[in-house]
């Protein structure tokens, strides 16, 4: 990976360019703030690399176009923001059921309903607990910086291809709209990407039995078998695909837990707390599913208190509590409606807790 040259780019455009370099040549989308620049970037950029861009009539159509394109085995993606992601849930359930590899980006904004267009983290439940019907999982990755967003985008396509699973990059309007210097990886050679010819819909060429891509079986015994197989895969992903960052945790008495944009902000909170003599550190889950439960639980042996900080009313905190399982108190601070809390206000809350 060539990392010498850094380019100043916007978050949404960084993800778009990273996707193209990762081998994505098909994008189906529908404009919605605060991620429309990603759609626009793809409209401009994909024709330059012989790719296909299509603006659909709705997010409902988008997710089904993704289903169709992904069923041919090619690298395909879309991006949207909260209300649009809600509209895609039906199709995501089908895609998860049919075990199709593809990448979604949700640039989360304030909700519920129309809400506002400011950054929020209030789609955590929908992203990690299954917004659509049925028992299924998406791999959910949340970057804290644009460089990490670029790297996770490449990773997302590889994980999707490796396990035949939809992968979601969960970010927010702050990261989507900010600019940072980023170094991009080289273009992937399309010929080196995963070979999906054993199941993909590419035509039988009169040489083999037809392929069936589907999420259904009307026989409950067969369907349970399909579901159990899928959950075996989820177990394998849980064992091998957890991502997280630990920051100044070795001597920490307080573990601040936060992801994405908040995960970045709370590092300076930990630094400031240490200046005041409070030993604080940060645990930042990068994969929100699979959530690094055991890795976080480990710190309950040395830390006294866990402190979840989110731009929501408290959603990830449920996973933090599951990790700690009553061994230590878990406190919470959050802002809603698209308000990004400042390090100062988080620090003030932290000092109240000790």
């Amino acid at each position, binding site marked *: 990976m060539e990392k010498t040259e850094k380019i100043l780019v916007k978050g949404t455009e960084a993800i778009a360019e990273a996707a193209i370099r990762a081998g994505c040549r*098909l994008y*189906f989308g529908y404009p919605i703030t605060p991620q429309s620049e990603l759609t626009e970037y793809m409209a401009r950029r994909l024709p330059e690399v012989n790719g*296909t861009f*299509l603006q*659909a*009539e*709705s997010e*409902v*159509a*988008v997710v*089904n*176009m*993704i*289903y*169709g*394109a*992904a*069923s*041919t085995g*090619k690298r*395909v993606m879309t991006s949207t923001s909260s209300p649009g992601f809600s509209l895609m849930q*039906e*199709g995501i359930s*089908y895609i998860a059921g*049919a075990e199709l590899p593809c990448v979604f980006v949700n640039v989360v904004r304030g909700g519920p309903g129309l809400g506002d267009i400011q950054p929020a983290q209030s789609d955590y439940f929908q992203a990690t607990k299954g917004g659509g019907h049925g028992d299924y999982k998406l791999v959910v990755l949340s970057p804290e910086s644009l460089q990490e967003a670029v790297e996770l985008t490449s990773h997302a396509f590889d994980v999707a291809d490796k396990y035949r699973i939809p992968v979601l990059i969960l970010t927010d309007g702050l990261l989507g709209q900010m600019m940072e210097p980023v170094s991009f990886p080289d273009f992937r050679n399309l010929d080196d990407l995963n070979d999906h010819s054993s199941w993909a*819909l*590419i*035509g*039988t*060429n*009169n*040489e083999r039995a*037809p*392929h*069936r*891509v*589907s*999420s*259904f079986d009307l026989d409950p015994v067969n369907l349970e078998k399909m579901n159990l197989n899928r959950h075996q895969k989820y177990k394998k992903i849980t064992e091998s695909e957890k991502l997280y960052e630990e920051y100044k945790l070795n001597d920490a008495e307080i573990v601040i837990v936060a992801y994405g944009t908040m995960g970045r902000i709370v590092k300076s909170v930990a630094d400031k707390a240490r200046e005041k003599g409070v030993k604080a550190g940060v645990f930042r889950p990068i994969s929100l599913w699979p959530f690094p439960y055991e890795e976080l639980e480990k710190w309950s042996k040395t830390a006294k208190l866990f402190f979840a900080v989110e731009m929501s009313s408290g959603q990830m905190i449920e996973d933090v509590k599951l990790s700690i399982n009553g061994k230590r108190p878990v406190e919470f601070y959050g802002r809603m409606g698209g308000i990004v809390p400042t390090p100062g206000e988080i620090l003030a809350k932290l000092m109240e807790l000790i």
Partner: protein
Amino acid sequence: MSTYTERFKTPVSLSEKEFTYCPGCHHGIAHRLIAEVIDELNIQGKTIMVAPVGCSVFAYDFFDVDGTVAAHGRAPAVATGIKRARPQNIVFTYQGDGDLAAIGTAEIIHAANRGEKITTIFINNAIYGMTGGQMAPTTLLGMKTTTTPYGRDETKDGYPIRVSEVLKELRGVAFLARTKVTTPQDVLKTKKYIKKAFQAQINNIGFGLVEILSTCPTNWGLTPIESMKWLEENMVKEYPLGVFIDKVG
């Protein structure tokens, strides 16, 4: 030496699986015609089917081609995704009237309007089949269904949607016809239309759709013979037959 010529054999594009449709249902005839067309156009190896939700959800098991099943109404979007990813393939959707004219209205109109190079076979039997005989957008005025037990009333339920008449205004459509399969002549004509709808895709002209008026003896509460008669006497009046658009030539 044989003294007769074999004229009636199973199309190669049909699988060996027996149809699971009710006696007198027209899905079987429609399936066979599609398979014959695929054989004659020599496109079996590159055809990809998008099956619907409803009675014909298993359609992809009856055709010997690659296939998937779309969520209710979404087949044109799924087909769009497949075709954009693999323009070299032939992609067709098979949809009922609940699927295409109710929950999937947006998808069919926009796929047609984009001139998506796909083919849609639209089975209009004026009722919801698999869910057990409820009102469809195409249910006739006065027609009794489980959700219009007193007959469809336009003041409450609105009017039957004439899908082909709606679609004919869209400039992306390359072939569009409404037909039926109640007589041998109709069957031959329908096959010709289906072939043209595929030809519109093969020739890269645009979107093709064939609307086939069909029976549902089980949910209509009629025998297969009575159903054919009812279709002729009632449905054809509401849904005039003919070719609406033909850019194939």
